[in-house]
């Protein structure tokens, strides 16, 4: 093991097959994220930021190299073990919120808890706590279409928090929001990191969003650089 960060990425490579063409997205990338860090990954389109994020979150596997999160070698886990790991250890925030349109805010946040053995009462407590945290306690029975973009994203964040994961992964969380809502979301993320000590890895285009992070790194042509 090269380093001992909370998130430790070692010499990973990843390529995709697009019809007949093989595209090398990441080549020999290594990254160390200490516990409690708030990292922003920036770079031009197609640079592989989202791919790297997916590898860290256990949504995808590297062709070569290893990914270790909180001392667990996730690229060595089988599919169902990986699914379980995700449920307990990672919270996702997407650019397009990705809420289930047929479920209310409450039910959306409750989803991850269905995989646990908590009692109905315990589930309710967790959900209400998460929704209060993001400031949406008064909208819990609304459907996504009845919420504004900013509110939807906050529901998504509540969903990401409800199982109390140590790692939060965010892919362009403010990409679809106006200035005011974006500001609100970033403040929320900052609070999660400072107050609740969540390790956050965020991909963003938005320089203002990147300002809130501790550290910014650039990914370009497969190379990771500071700054």
């Amino acid at each position, binding site marked *: 093991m090269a380093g001992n960060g909370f998130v430790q990425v070692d010499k990973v490579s990843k390529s995709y097959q697009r019809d007949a063409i093989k595209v090398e997205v990441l080549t020999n990338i290594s990254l160390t994220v200490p516990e409690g860090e708030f990292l922003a990954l920036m770079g031009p389109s197609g640079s592989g930021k989202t*791919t790297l994020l*997916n590898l860290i*979150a256990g*949504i*995808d596997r590297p062709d070569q190299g290893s990914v270790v999160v909180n001392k667990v070698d996730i690229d060595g886990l089988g*599919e*169902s073990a990986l*699914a*379980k790991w*995700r*449920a*307990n250890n990672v919270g*996702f925030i*997407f650019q397009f919120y*990705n809420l*289930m*349109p*047929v*479920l209310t805010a409450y039910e959306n946040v409750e*989803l*991850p808890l*269905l*995989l646990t053995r908590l009692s109905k009462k315990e589930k309710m407590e967790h959900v209400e706590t998460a929704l209060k945290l993001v400031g949406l306690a008064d909208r819990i029975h609304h459907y996504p279409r009845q919420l504004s973009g900013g509110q939807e994203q906050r529901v998504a964040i509540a*969903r990401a928090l409800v199982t109390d994961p140590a790692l939060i992964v965010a892919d362009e969380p403010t990409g679809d929001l106006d200035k005011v809502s974006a500001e609100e979301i970033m403040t929320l993320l900052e609070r999660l990191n400072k107050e609740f000590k969540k390790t956050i890895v965020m991909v963003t285009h938005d320089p203002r969003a990147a300002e809130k992070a501790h550290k910014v790194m650039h990914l370009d042509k497969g190379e990771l650089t500071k700054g």
Partner: protein
Amino acid sequence: MFIFRLILKNALRHKLRTFLTILGICIAVTAFGFLRTIVTAWSAGVEMSSVTRMITRHKVSFIMPLPKSYREKIQTIADVDQVTYANWFGGLYKDPNDWKNFFPRMAVDPETYFDIYPEFVLSEKELADFRKERNACIVGTKIAKEHGFKIGDIVSMDGDIYPGKWDFVVRGIYKGKDETWDETQMLFQWDYLNERITQQQPTRQGNVGWYVLRVKDQNAMPAVAREVDELFSNSRAGTKTETEKEFQQSFVSMSSAIITSLEAISYIIIGIILLILANTIAMAARERTREYAVLKTLGFSSVHIVGLIAGESLLLACLGGALGLVLTFPISAGFAKLFPTFFPIFNVEDITIILAVSVALLAGIIAATFPTSATLRTKIADGLRQIG
């Protein structure tokens, strides 16, 4: 259960599409049930057979007559309890091109026929009146209703096999012992037929169409068949004796090609059900590719996803199937009313119900297979990338 609520809500997302899918499946299942009912109705006669009756007919063909004198000889066989006989009269009633005017008309022995066929339910008085008058006839309740026959009415018709003008007086209306017995027959006295024929075409007198035997014990049947046919093996008119069931079955097999075709078509219907359902489920699954990917990121496993897809598929299949099955009954009843004499017995059998339910379930499962395997194969990252 939460998963079930999710399935239901998903199905209600596109109300029109869900409604059309259920409607399509419903119609197809109704058609399936209806066709199957026709197929089973065709063999209804076989089910009507009794376990102790046998039929003796001319060896070469059912069409050819047997001498009445055979009766005495047949009665000498030990295991034969009772012997009766009948002739197919045929005849043309009113407009022969109209379906409704075709019903079985037969000349029978009034003394023994109803003894061998207790399934004809008649009052004592009606039977007595029938035996008293030479040109009396008994008709079934279905044709009595269809043609408005009442006791005392005169029914006239032209003979074809037995030419001339014939008049019969209705002296009894019979019911079948249950819904499996034909209530469309008209029976009259054999002697009436024979007397006319003796006058008009004397060479044809003294002949019956076939004999019906009642055998004391089921197990004796093969032996009886052999013995009867032995009796007449050297006569001019050789006989073939078989159980009533075999006899009825031979009629069914005459139309076996048509029956097979109807069965084949009923299977094609299953294909149509599948196509409609598979189309809808595939569409729904494709629309929700991103959602399934998100569920996977949250930690739901493939089993859960398959459950959602298959669950919705089965839900639609079962709703459509149940509705379709319920509709099969009134449609079959309506058809039976329209063509009472063509299929005298037209019931939706249990086997049809079982088949229809199985078909719906099977369709629900099969329709989900392609979308399921596609979804399972899709990597989470690709699924998230999907638009719409």
